[in-house]
């Protein structure tokens, strides 16, 4: 990925506790959910059809957890080339609602070497405008 190599952080210059540049999203809209429904292939009506959502006991539709995971993925690939990603996982801790302003954050928690490859482990989260954590996760990326 030559287009991003020059911006890639270097293993030696990183410290545990260093943070990734934050990614702030626009408020979650119904259009975003409709587009994600179509593009992702996740056609579960609970995310786009308010009548269905109410029949399932919800006050309104809510965002796909995987949409937030895709945003956190952008946080990662804004920081390192996509080919540097070794693992990436999240736990969906709370529901992201229409109107929420989601912020994606990441922090270095460990520097390690695996099979001669230098890597860092990152702690990830999405939080809303009130500071409520929606997703928590971690990723391991390889660094030069």
């Amino acid at each position: 990925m030559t287009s991003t190599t020059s911006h890639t952080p270097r293993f030696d210059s990183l410290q545990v506790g260093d943070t990734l540049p934050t990614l702030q999203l626009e408020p979650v809209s119904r259009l975003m959910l409709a587009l994600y429904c179509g593009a992702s292939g996740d056609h579960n009506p609970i995310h786009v059809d308010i009548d269905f959502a109410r029949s399932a006991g919800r006050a309104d539709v809510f965002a796909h957890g995987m949409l937030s995971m895709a945003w956190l993925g952008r946080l990662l690939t804004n920081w390192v080339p996509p080919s540097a990603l070794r693992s990436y996982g999240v736990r969906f801790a709370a529901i992201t609602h229409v109107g929420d302003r989601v912020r994606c954050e990441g922090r270095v928690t460990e520097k390690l070497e695996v099979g001669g490859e230098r890597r860092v482990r990152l702690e990830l989260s999405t939080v809303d405008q009130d500071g409520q954590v929606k997703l928590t996760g971690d990723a391991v990326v390889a660094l030069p």
Partner: protein
Amino acid sequence: MIDRSFIGHTLPAFDVRVEAGRLRFFAKATGQTDPLYVDEDAARAAGLPGLLVPPTFLFCLEMDAPDPAAIRNLLGMDYRKLLHGEQQFTYHAPAHAGDTLRFEQRIEDIYDKKGGALEFVVRRTQVHNQRDARVAELRTVTVLRNA
């Protein structure tokens, strides 16, 4: 309660072709503007065989199974009561538009918490490409709310 005898059950493997148009649509839906995901010329100029599959899109491709409801129906789960609990990816090789990926799904575990009010289904999916190279492994935890 979900029948625990399905622990270890393997589903029939299936192939999914990665389409460039779908990748562009996914990039739009997720606000991804990096040209590697949307501009075929830029991807080729970067030495890639086609548009790059973004980190979470493998989960979407897995949902392109011939019967995306296969596991739900097999285990008798009402999807009004389902939540996505966890999702993990381990990456081995990149995937690109034009690839045909093979998905092999296995039900790794089924367990419950809170006296059966919550049941958890853990699925592990191996993904290989048309050259039989390992692309990724997905681990998905689905939560069934029985309360």
